[in-house]
């Protein structure tokens, strides 16, 4: 997404005065500064660019009190799972952990959302700028907010931006992100989740596809047979984007940068690393994430000395769902098809330990079927 021109980022639409909910709030009430000073340089003294981060209470809390009560625990704000993952992979040495913490603050903690960075402006991580002249957006626009951050994976998959792959059927039905990922999910419910897949009001396919296990449903046999054996994505997603080896550092001017190695489209089924009551399936789609033992080497060597505690091929819910896919064309398009499964030979030597629990031994790949349902 092209960044906005500097003046476009801060241009206010005069229609804001007609906003019956926010139009009566003067700029300085949220942003500070001196509204009577005609010199813009001195008028901006003390101005807060995003008055909704880290604490939105003063700016939004008076009216949106229910959301304000919980949003600090929204994963988009807290980034808690990310910190927990790093905690598990990190060395136990306190000095090293402190250095890792500094590196993460420089490179990782910037990628968060806030009330303002969804409902008023583009997120800071994509250089910000008002969405529509500071007019408040009840539903954040998908491409300027959601996929501005979730671009390399979700956007490419959902919109079908990779050659030879189709967009998600849900995109074809004109569904935007908020159709599945509701405001309630985004705003948090006050619980400190350890993983995004634990979020209670996160989307589930069966929320809409309620009928699939009913006797009269199409493909009911197939759905019943595979229930708790394979996630919906195993049968219904197309190949999806995988990333590798993120390294961070600072350049000669002291500016922070990151570099990732190659990314590639692939489709791999493996054992479910997050088996739970909500996700009981044995087989799930796995995505390679850009985790690397040496990510933070610029700051401190061996920062992630417990790297093998978590897989680098992680449970994934690709966003390019289709009714018909290559692997569900027939039973034996998947059964006995080694190329679809994450085998030991598919994993880099230095990541074999981390992925030992998700790799599928050849003898445990579902066997070819002689009988096939009509």
């Amino acid at each position, binding site marked *: 997404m092209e960044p906005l*021109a*500097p*003046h476009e980022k*801060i*241009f*206010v*639409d*005069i229609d804001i*005065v*007609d906003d019956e909910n926010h*139009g*009566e709030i*003067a*700029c*300085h009430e949220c*942003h500070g*500064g*001196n*509204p*009577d*000073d*005609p010199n*813009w340089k001195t*008028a901006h003294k003390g101005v807060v660019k995003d008055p909704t981060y880290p604490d939105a209470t003063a700016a939004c809390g008076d009216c949106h009190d229910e959301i304000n009560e919980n949003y600090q625990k929204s994963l988009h704000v807290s980034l808690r799972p990310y910190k927990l993952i790093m905690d598990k992979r990190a060395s136990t040495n306190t000095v090293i952990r402190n250095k890792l913490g500094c590196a993460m603050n420089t490179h990782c903690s910037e990628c968060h959302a806030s009330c303002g960075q969804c409902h008023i402006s583009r997120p800071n*991580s994509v*250089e910000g700028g008002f969405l529509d002249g*500071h007019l408040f957006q009840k539903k954040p626009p998908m491409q300027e907010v959601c996929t501005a951050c979730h*671009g*390399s994976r979700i956007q490419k998959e959902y919109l079908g931006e990779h050659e030879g792959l189709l967009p998600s059927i849900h995109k074809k039905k004109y569904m935007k992100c908020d159709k599945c990922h509701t405001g309630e999910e985004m705003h948090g419910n006050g619980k400190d989740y350890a993983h995004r897949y634990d979020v209670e009001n996160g989307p589930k396919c069966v929320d809409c596809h309620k009928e699939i296990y009913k006797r009269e449903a199409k493909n009911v046999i197939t759905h019943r047979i595979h229930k708790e054996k394979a996630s919906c994505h195993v049968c219904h997603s197309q190949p999806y*984007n995988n*990333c590798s080896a*993120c390294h961070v*550092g*600072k*350049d000669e*001017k002291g*500016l*922070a*940068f*990151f*570099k*990732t*190695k190659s*990314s590639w489209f692939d489709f791999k089924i493996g054992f479910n690393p997050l088996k739970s009551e909500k996700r009981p399936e044995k087989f799930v789609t796995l995505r390679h994430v850009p985790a690397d033992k040496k990510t933070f080497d610029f700051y401190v060597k061996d920062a992630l000395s417990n790297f093998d505690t978590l897989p680098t091929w992680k449970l994934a819910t690709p966003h390019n769902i289709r009714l018909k896919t290559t692997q569900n064309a027939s039973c034996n398009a998947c059964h006995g098809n080694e190329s679809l499964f994450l085998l030991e030979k598919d994993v880099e030597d230095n990541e074999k330990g981390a992925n030992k629990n998700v790799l599928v031994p050849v003898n445990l790949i579902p066997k070819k079927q002689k009988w096939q349902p009509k």
Partner: protein
Amino acid sequence: MKYFKVIGMAAAFCLVLIPWNTFLCQAYEDTQCFQCHTSAKKLIEATREIAKTRPTVKSAETSGEG
């Protein structure tokens, strides 16, 4: 009774027909913030001035997908 009716109608007229929003807008529009941030010309001048003094904040070494 007659007076009450007249007063009541006058009050209703004031509440319903007078565009109270106009007064609020007036106050809003008077601020320096609003005058500058609703003028593309003023913003272009100011942001050009800022660009001259403020160094780049993004490293050119960033590469790959985030």
